[in-house]
């Protein structure tokens, strides 16, 4: 049986996976070594997020859910870092974190190490805290919303909450002026709408990974979320906060790799139509 010779269209349609990944790796590395400095315009969602925190009254408490897993760190970590910078720079706010993901406490540590709150004169237990991983996702959200101390009496290091001055007068969802959620899971992003926004009308800022944005958009459109930003927009937040970090570095890379993706889609289509018009199937 003779082997049928491949046409140029066949070859274009069947570019080996290894070649595609090889090109992709090069597309990643070049802008990392030689940044192009593409402009990063601020989107209305990021601006709205920034403005909302900026306009919070002094003394406001913010609940921050580290509801993401390690896989989402690259995308959500830089956004969380930028927002913490904003909260600490702005001052007069209480940043109370919890985790609905069991990796959350570790990721909180990573974010705080990157932010270095001491540069703003902020102290753990006084200006910010993490009350631990609260299991049960929506059950946990509902529990914390109803009575924090009935759900947990210590922070994630085991220090009693009553020994942390930041927790004075903070008992339930009604004591919070804002809820922020970073998440890689729909249970968290939608759960907070159900358990806190709908029940207590707590204003909600949601930062999921980009692939979850289409699912969450209807909630923003219905006004249940003040602002919905994907972690991929962290570069914009860093620009607003004037603390350039990992987010802004990723902007060039993401642009170049997406152009590559578009180019490959075009190549695939050219191959498809080329094959069709040259009499192939």
């Amino acid at each position, binding site marked *: 049986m003779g082997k049928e010779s491949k046409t140029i269209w066949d070859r274009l349609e069947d570019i080996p*996976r*290894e070649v595609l*990944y090889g090109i992709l790796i090069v597309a*990643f*590395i070049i802008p*990392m070594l030689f940044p192009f400095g593409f402009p990063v315009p601020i989107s209305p969602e990021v601006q709205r997020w920034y403005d909302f925190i900026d306009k919070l009254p002094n003394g406001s408490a913010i609940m921050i859910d580290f509801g993401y897993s390690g*896989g*989402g*760190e*690259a*995308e959500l*970590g830089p956004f969380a870092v930028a927002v913490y910078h904003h909260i600490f720079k702005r001052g007069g706010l209480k940043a109370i974190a919890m985790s609905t993901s*069991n*990796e959350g406490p570790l990721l909180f540590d990573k974010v705080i190490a990157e932010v270095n709150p001491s540069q703003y004169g902020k102290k753990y237990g006084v200006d910010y805290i993490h009350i*631990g*991983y609260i*299991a049960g996702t*929506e*059950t946990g959200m*509902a529990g914390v919303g109803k009575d924090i101390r009935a*759900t*947990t*009496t*210590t922070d994630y290091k*085991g220090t009693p909450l009553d020994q942390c001055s930041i927790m004075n007068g903070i008992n339930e969802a009604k004591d919070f002026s804002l809820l922020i959620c970073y998440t890689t899971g729909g249970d968290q992003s*939608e*759960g907070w*709408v*159900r*358990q806190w*926004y*709908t*029940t207590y009308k707590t204003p909600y800022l949601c930062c999921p*990974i*980009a*692939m*979850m*944005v*289409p699912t969450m958009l*209807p*909630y923003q*459109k*219905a*006004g*249940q979320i003040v602002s919905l930003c*994907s*972690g*991929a927009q962290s570069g914009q937040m860093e620009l607003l906060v004037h603390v350039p970090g*990992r987010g802004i*570095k*990723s902007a060039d*890379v*993401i642009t170049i*790799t*997406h152009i590559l*993706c578009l180019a490959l889609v075009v190549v695939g289509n050219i191959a498809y139509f080329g094959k069709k018009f040259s009499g192939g199937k």
Partner: protein
Amino acid sequence: MADFAMVVQIWFAALLTIWIYSIVFKDNVFFKFAEHTFVGAAAGHGIVMGVDNILRYGWAPFIGGNYIYIVVFVLGLLLYTRYHGNYFWLSRFPLAVLVGVGIGLSVRTDVSASFIAQIQSTAGMKVLGTDAWTAFSNLVFIIITLSVVYYFIFTFPKMHGGRLGIISTIAKYGMMAAFGYSFANTVLSRFNMIFGRFDYIMNTWLPLPYAMIALPVALILLIYVMIPAERRPWPKTQK
């Protein structure tokens, strides 16, 4: 000491990253090692967090005098009866509690949060008395929403035939656009993840001493193990 531990951690994280990504070229022993390490570490972490949860949210209140928590412990233990041939049915009780609480909590607000609010927001969209672009966007949104809802009415097949079929066609195009948007966002997420790991390798690992030497060595080794055993120059395999 802490610094040394950090250096070891960075080296291990960087090498595991390279080994994990090597699967895109070919399956190999380094990938398998990294994969198994990840699964083991994730399982270990899950167990630690689970035990910590029991201690914090169950044991601590119990020894603090909140004896009602004995019910929770009993329910928790009953979950494990599923592994026993004769008493597996007992595990249904804690499962029923878990499912009941979960459904109860989500249903109490789900109708309002995911149904009524969405309908209200769509119904409240302005097509008149607003700027042309917003009016056009809103009109498209309303048409697509209604046609997609129509598309999923399966009870009366005739509703999708004849001239009414145009509604289903509009719905299909609308959904295709949504899937495309979703796919593009997925690509964005995945690329961000890859960037995160590359950034870690380039800016955290490579600046460390000897890392610049280790990188090519690691890559050469990877390529070597991807060569089929019988074609490797060394070690020679017996036929």
